[in-house]
């Protein structure tokens, strides 16, 4: 896939970063605002799609590797299951970090309040891990589908061509 024109690439370079920042914001503020890991992860994966479409496969190949996304996806799901299992002394998926002090452990006042980032226990942790998993998974789907549709521009190590 050839890169798009200079105009499209410049606009993408400018605005793709807003997309990435917005997606990370949605992931991090999942326990305060609408959204969460799945939605924010999809937004960050759209950032990867922007870069892939605007700059073409060769540039993308030099920037990222599939291994990073594999690590993100498996690590995210493992972190999620671990956060669920750590509350096992009570029940599976028990919120053991809430109101316990420390990271994510602040107490929330009852009723309408502006909210603090340092609350909600394992919910914030699970939001982060699910966001990591969705970013890795959707980006991997994107890259695999791209390399399937354009086999001449290979991704990753295992396909490093025999013919060049």
């Amino acid at each position, binding site marked *: 896939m050839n890169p798009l024109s200079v105009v499209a690439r410049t606009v993408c370079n400018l605005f793709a970063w807003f997309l990435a920042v917005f997606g990370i914001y949605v992931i991090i503020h999942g326990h305060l605002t609408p959204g969460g890991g799945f939605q924010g992860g999809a937004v960050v994966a759209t950032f990867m799609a922007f870069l892939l479409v605007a700059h073409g496969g060769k540039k993308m190949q030099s920037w990222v590797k599939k291994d990073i996304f594999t690590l993100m996806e498996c690590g995210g799901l493992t972190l999620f*299951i671990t956060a669920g299992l750590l509350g096992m002394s009570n029940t599976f*998926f028990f919120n053991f970090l809430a109101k316990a002090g420390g990271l994510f452990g602040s107490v*929330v006042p009852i*009723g309408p309040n502006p909210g603090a980032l340092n609350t909600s226990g394992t*919910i914030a942790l699970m939001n982060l891990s699910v966001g990591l998993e969705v970013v890795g998974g959707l980006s991997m*789907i994107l890259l695999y589908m791209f390399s399937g549709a354009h086999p001449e521009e290979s991704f990753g190590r295992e396909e490093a061509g025999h013919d060049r």
Partner: protein
Amino acid sequence: MKARIFFLISILLVGGLLWTGLQAVHPFGNPNETPMDDYFIANAQGEAAANNVVTSIVFDYRGFDTLGEGAVLFTAVISVAALFRKRGHN
């Protein structure tokens, strides 16, 4: 022509069923059974310590469901990878 008559009859049938079903819907924002909603609205901030009640349901009260969603995404990625992988070096 026959197919058109068939489509018309099926559209009328489905539309009629939908319409008769919609007659029985109770007004929006006025559920019949409220104890579950009341419990979440009253206790989500105190128990899960999260301002966003929807997130506290998705990730705390029904965390197992979210684990299933994550597993579904993982399976989807694996199946896409299996579909688009290169042929082996045989």
